[in-house]
């Protein structure tokens, strides 16, 4: 059965305190893994797609990495505006995206 687990559920960081969010997955025929950011009351905002183990992508203070069982979203020197819920979504062989429940990040000034 396809499963996605994100940890931690919630994370509070001081501004400038780097950390990582984890996405563990079991998906048949992985075709890619998506990361999204979601602010309260808004739809998810696309961040990255990773296609193969070992791949990395960066955008400003965010870097996403992928292994065969996990993906990490590294946040370097976060700012308060990085506060949001971060969702990962592996895509299976049938082109279905399976979203995790997300990590709610709060960055304190």
């Amino acid at each position, binding site marked *: 059965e396809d499963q996605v687990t994100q940890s931690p559920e919630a994370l509070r960081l001081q501004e400038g305190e780097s950390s990582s969010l984890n996405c563990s997955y079991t998906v048949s025929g992985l075709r*890619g893994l998506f990361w999204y950011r979601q602010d309260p009351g808004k739809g*998810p905002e696309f961040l990255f797609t990773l296609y193969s183990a070992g791949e990395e992508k960066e955008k400003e203070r965010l870097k996403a990495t992928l292994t065969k069982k996990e993906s990490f979203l590294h946040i370097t020197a976060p700012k308060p505006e990085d506060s949001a819920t971060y969702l990962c979504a592996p895509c299976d062989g049938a*082109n279905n995206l399976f*979203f995790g429940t997300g990590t709610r990040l709060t960055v304190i000034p």
Partner: protein
Amino acid sequence: GAGVSQTPSNKVTEKGKYVELRCDPISGHTALYWYRQSLGQGPEFLIYFQGTGAADDSGLPNDRFFAVRPEGSVSTLKIQRTERGDSAVYLCASSANREGLFFGPGTRLTVL
């Protein structure tokens, strides 16, 4: 350019009523998706269109839910005989390819 738009932004209805939720995808995007998101959960897949046809409707929870995309652009999600458990945010997303799905702001449906 304009992103995905959804109307209405909020819909309150009574149990047993019929509702329609509309999605305008990004122009030129051939793929369109509907998801449902409950509080504290990630989006849950409902249905996927490629052009005018439903390529995958395996996520629709039961036959009260139906979606159409008659001209390959705008889509309407239709829910018959609404139940309180249908209350959620309904998200629409579109894509030109599998590089990324771009989501709209969602329609918050409340069934009283």
